[in-house]
């Protein structure tokens, strides 16, 4: 092996800088899953009867289902009875003021670089902070309320806006949709809820920050965003977890409802703990994300996936209304022993619907990266258009990249394009940059960022900077 290649491998073994855990006084249920646990969660949250019934239906469905094994993933068996399904920081804040946030929680978020103090906030972003499945605080509530925007924890929404929740919960991802969505529907503990009224352009970016803190717990959060007619919202999501030797399960569901002529832009920077360089520990990330776009509506998913031992995630758009638009922009990095099987589904139901998919997979170390995507045009999808581009970048010799596109077209007027490429960071590229005076780390970071350019361009400014930094850190090793 040449020296440069060895260097690349060293560079890609970055340490995880969010691996600390915080000593919070936590209310935690004993491990195990049965109907009583579902009832316990519902009772803890003081939920209405219809929601308990919904959970129980999901639990019943889940028990009859089998774990999916079609993904290109090597997964150690998950013992669902060894996981605790309820963990919450014991001190609950009064939600009106940031000063009431538990100082230890506030310190934890400060350490993560996410100030919850509104005075300290640098950017125009409202944040819902979720620790171990429970929303601990939501910032900027007053400003948002003036615009008529509802942004709160899911639990709060259930209490305050039950009709909105009941109308839309499960309307995009039904409880029986898949194994992990069913599990989430049964045991989800909290998450974020957002409603943008008719004609309102949300005055700021909305953001949820997820943190798993406790040991042996799973995180099952639920996000529901409803954009009413002619509204617009941009939503950001970030995630980290402590460094632990055992795998932890994260099974979230995100549902987006974009009504007529509305637009939802959903951006994720996922940085769950990926496990160590021997593949020990790390988060199992099984996420169902889907949006329904009505007439002339647009849903855009942008994701930067650098964390998790396993990522199983296909943010999708059901293009139901005529002229609706779906977009998927993705950067997925698998280094160390990470495995990612990720992509999207674009289901063209309405006429003149358009979707575009730009996927950038980066594999390093022993990482395995699979793009799996479905473009489906129903008989009703007259003049549907899709453009798909899947690019893979390989760093080193032990990693792998795989592209598995599925295309199903039932309407002959549809136009589908698919482009794919696989490349490596050549020693020649590094040498060329170094001859021009750049260090090897700078050169590598520049080349990888260049590879991801089209996706980063889609992220809101603060997130784009964060994503570039994250990618550099994940690749360079020295920082942290």
């Amino acid at each position, binding site marked *: 092996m*040449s*020296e*440069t290649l060895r260097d690349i491998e060293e560079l890609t073994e970055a340490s995880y800088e969010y691996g600390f855990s915080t000593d919070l006084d936590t209310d935690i249920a004993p491990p195990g899953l049965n109907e009583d646990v579902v009832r316990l969660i519902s009772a803890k949250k003081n939920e209405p009867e219809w929601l308990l019934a919904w959970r129980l239906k999901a639990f019943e469905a889940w028990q009859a289902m089998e774990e999916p094994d079609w993904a290109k993933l090597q997964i150690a068996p998950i013992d669902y009875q060894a996981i605790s399904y309820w963990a919450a920081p014991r001190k609950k804040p009064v939600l009106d003021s940031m000063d009431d946030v538990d100082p230890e929680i506030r310190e934890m978020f400060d350490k993560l670089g996410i100030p919850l103090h509104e005075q300290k906030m640098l950017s125009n972003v409202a944040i819902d902070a979720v620790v171990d499945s429970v929303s601990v605080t939501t910032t900027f509530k007053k400003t948002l309320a003036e615009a008529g925007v509802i942004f709160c924890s899911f639990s709060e929404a259930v209490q305050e806006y039950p009709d909105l929740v009941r109308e839309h919960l499960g309307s995009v991802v039904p409880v029986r949709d898949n194994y992990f969505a069913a599990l989430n529907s049964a045991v989800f503990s909290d998450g974020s809820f957002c409603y943008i009224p008719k004609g309102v352009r949300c005055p700021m970016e909305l953001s949820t920050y997820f943190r798993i803190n406790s040991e042996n717990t799973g995180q099952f959060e639920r996000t529901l965003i409803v954009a009413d007619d002619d509204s617009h919202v941009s939503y950001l999501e970030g995630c980290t977890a402590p460094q632990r030797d055992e795998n932890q399960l994260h099974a979230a569901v995100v549902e987006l409802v974009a009504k007529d002529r509305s637009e939802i832009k959903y951006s994720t920077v996922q940085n769950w703990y990926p496990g160590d360089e021997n593949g020990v520990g790390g988060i199992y990330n099984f996420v169902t994300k889907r949006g329904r776009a009505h007439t002339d509506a647009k849903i855009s998913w942008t994701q930067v996936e650098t964390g998790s031992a396993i990522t199983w995630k296909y943010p999708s758009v059901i293009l139901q209304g005529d002229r609706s638009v779906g977009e998927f922009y993705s950067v997925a990095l698998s280094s160390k022993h990470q495995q990612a099987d990720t992509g999207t589904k674009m289901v063209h139901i309405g006429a003149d619907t358009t979707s575009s998919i730009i996927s950038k997979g980066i594999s390093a170390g022993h990482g395995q990266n699979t793009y799996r995507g479905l473009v489906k045009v129903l008989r009703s999808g007259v003049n549907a258009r899709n453009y798909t581009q899947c690019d893979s970048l390989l760093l080193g010799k032990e990693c792998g990249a795989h592209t598995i596109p599925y295309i199903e077209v039932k309407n002959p007027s549809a136009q589908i394009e698919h482009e794919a490429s696989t490349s490596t960071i*050549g*020693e*020649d*590229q590094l*040498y*060329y*940059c*170094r*001859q*021009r*005076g*750049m*260090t*090897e780390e*700078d050169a590598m970071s*520049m*080349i990888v*960022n*260049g*590879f*991801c*350019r*089209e996706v980063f361009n889609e992220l809101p400014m603060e997130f784009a900077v964060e994503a570039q930094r994250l990618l550099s850190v994940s690749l360079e090793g020295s920082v942290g």
Partner: protein
Amino acid sequence: MLHVENLTAAIGQTKILKGLNLDVGAGEVHAIMGPNGSGKSTFAHTIAGRDGYEITGTVTLDGADLLGMEPEDRAAAGVFMGFQYPVEIPGVNNMYFLRTALNSVRRSRGDTEISAREFLKVAKDAMDLVEMKQDFLDRAVNAGFSGGEKKRNEILQMAIMQPRLAVLDETDSGLDIDALRIIAGGVNALRGPERSMIVITHYQRLLDYIKPDFVHVLVDGRIVESGDHTLALHLEDHGYADFLNHGLDDAPEQPLTGVRS
């Protein structure tokens, strides 16, 4: 300025350079010519610091030992290489690349970084030199460039980096006559009393445009003949045949036991 003494380079068991000696003074332009496989490109890469060679001998620039330095440190010391095959870097904006390169070198030298605005001025002048249009800066580095554009981009980079020593590896290969004229014009404009150049080429053609002070013939890893530009004209007429024989003169007098050709 550049001093090369008894330089050898090998990849595994294959010896490529076999004791090369060369001195290049400040402001001089030296042409190195030679047949395929004589070690011309390897020589360029040993100066620039490419990985993968086993090297012995001495290469110093202004007294500083280049062989002990990483490629980026050599760049900071003033070494620039014009690549025979410039690589493509998709998604990386050409202007961003050039400014990062210039600032990397400035930083290593302890100079202040150049702002985007100042840089644009520098780039503008350099682009005029190689007759490049503004949109050239907005494209990704070498991605989708024609052969001629890639080579022009190399000279553009040289104009921006303002190196002490430029090694141009077959800058003329694959160029039509107009592109050759533009590139040679750029190179000539960059000649100066403080800058030395080594121009590596197969053909005398380039030397019609860039008049070298010295011409060296590289055969089988050694410089076998040096002279002024008339030497290049001689090569044009007679090829390398004379020097290939010369090369054989240096071969062991007795064939190795058991080897018969």
